[in-house]
């Protein structure tokens, strides 16, 4: 079992803390600094208990699933999502497959949302509730009773 975080945490001087704070761009009052010193001492202990010396060849923790080239089969949920969001008929994009392959925030923003499955009667009701018009109606329908639709104290 690793040592208790508080026991293994190195002490931090006011100067060191001020340096870390200015690097983070934080402006705190003395009480907030005192709270942070207490918390940081414990977090530093937790960090110290995590092994850092790993072989360079170890895989990184993250995996990125890029959208497949146009026409390729989707093999992961993220790929499937990306594929579903592709425009239905865009001749220019089809003529330039390279541009379609490259993940691009602007291009993604222009894509249409995924087509919904055929709704059941209850799902249709929920969908109706989710539309802005229905949402406005729900908001308007908010009760004005004594204990409702207001913060509780």
């Amino acid at each position, binding site marked *: *079992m690793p040592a208790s975080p508080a026991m293994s945490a190195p002490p931090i001087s006011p100067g060191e803390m001020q340096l870390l704070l200015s690097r983070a761009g934080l402006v705190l009052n003395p009480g907030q600094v005192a709270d942070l010193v207490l*918390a940081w001492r414990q977090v530093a202990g937790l960090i110290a208990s995590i*092994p850092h010396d790993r072989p360079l060849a170890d895989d990184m*923790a993250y995996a990125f699933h890029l959208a497949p080239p146009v026409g390729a089969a989707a093999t992961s*949920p*993220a790929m499937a999502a990306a594929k579903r969001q592709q425009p239905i008929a865009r001749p220019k994009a089809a003529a330039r497959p390279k541009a379609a392959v490259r993940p691009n925030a602007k291009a993604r923003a222009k894509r249409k949302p995924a087509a919904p499955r055929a709704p059941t009667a209850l799902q249709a009701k929920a969908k109706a509730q989710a539309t802005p018009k229905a949402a406005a109606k729900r908001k308007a329908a908010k009760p004005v009773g004594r204990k*409702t639709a207001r913060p*509780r104290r």
Partner: protein
Amino acid sequence: MKGSVPPFLTIAEAGRLIAAKRLSPVELVKELLARIETVDPRLNAFLLVTERQALAEARTAERAVMAGSRAPLLGIPLAYKDIYETAGVRTTAHSRILADNVPKQDAETVRRLHAEGVVMLGKLATHEFAIGGPAFDLPWPPARNPWDTRRFTGGSSSGSGAAVAAGMALGALGSDTGGSIRLPAAYCGIAGIKPTPGLVSRRGVIPLAPSLDTAGPMAWTAQDCAILLDALAGHDPLDPASVAVPKVSYAGAIAAPVKGLRVGLLRRFYEHDVPASTEMLQMVNRAVATLKGLGCRVDDATLPAVQEYNAVGRVIISSEAYALHEATLKQRLSDYSRAFRVRVLAGALVRAADYIAAQRRRSDLIAITAQAFEKFDVLIAVPTAGAAPMLTEQRPDDGFSRPLLTTVANVAAIPSMVVCGGFTTAGLPLGLEIMGPAWADATVLRVGHQFEQAAGTRERRPEL
């Protein structure tokens, strides 16, 4: 539709009565609204009660029932932790920062429930942004435990735990990043499951730490959690973490016997890493006897120390939560609770190399934990060292200074549920935690359900 409303109902019972036209969804909602009005001033579980909307939805459900519709959740009244976005209904995350936030869309989970005919009763208390609490320096007070209102509910799905235990809602949505569904389930004596990451969409749920966040149901019984999970589970292409897995009937799966199941007992967790109270140890012994009585094979199991999982979890949570809130923290620092600041600001000082080390160590812990399931179908532990502590005993730096037993399952990316394992001599509930390998949510629910049935821990309700 006529028929009196029994004082306490499970989702399964209410669903059966409604389907048989022996219980009116409208009368059920009226009964619960009256209970909320009577009981909630002592519990502070609700931040907002959507009375008129609930009655309108109940009438719609009643018409559907009369027209012949049948669905397990049709007309069932639930409430949502106030980090679930609800179209046209204020969603605050229990924070001044979002005090006037009215989302335009429902969270995907809320949409799925409403598609099944669920009635929303209102929005529930949480810790500020699912981490900063319990806090007394926010516009709304923290929720209180229905078994003893001086005591802590656990968090961060604090209102969800209190509302279900007090019978103000038949079920609730919670979220779990380090134990936030299972801790209130344990302290409030209910059931709650943190599903396998990717099983339930998190789209529209205000995030805390996206690498670890999980959305899930809380209810009086494991069976009710299974019914809710049937509606909640499913691929969401717009949640990048969502995974397309074959559809499973969780409510159908729980009825199968557990005879022959291999149960691993994580004894070192609660005897050494986070020593449990005597009453908790006695409860575990009784639970083991109950599981053996059901035909399970119980043996000791070992995993790395709880502290190892916690170190990884806390570093990831602090870093990611700070990153999400950095801009707002720099502009509105004093609008956050002190508890939030203490738990999140330290994330500003974590180096990128330390964060990556935590993520890499997490990969190891996921692999090591998965290996343990080669010998066992489920692992058993306790979610807390004892019964609910006093609310005033909670410290802003809890979570750093005291490791959470529940964080193991978040870091290991496995499903984990808490059911009521028994009670202290003072009448406070004690939780039992059941973990399974990734995607074995149905097995976890099955063990939870069969245990509840055999142990008989679902008969007692808090007296309010």
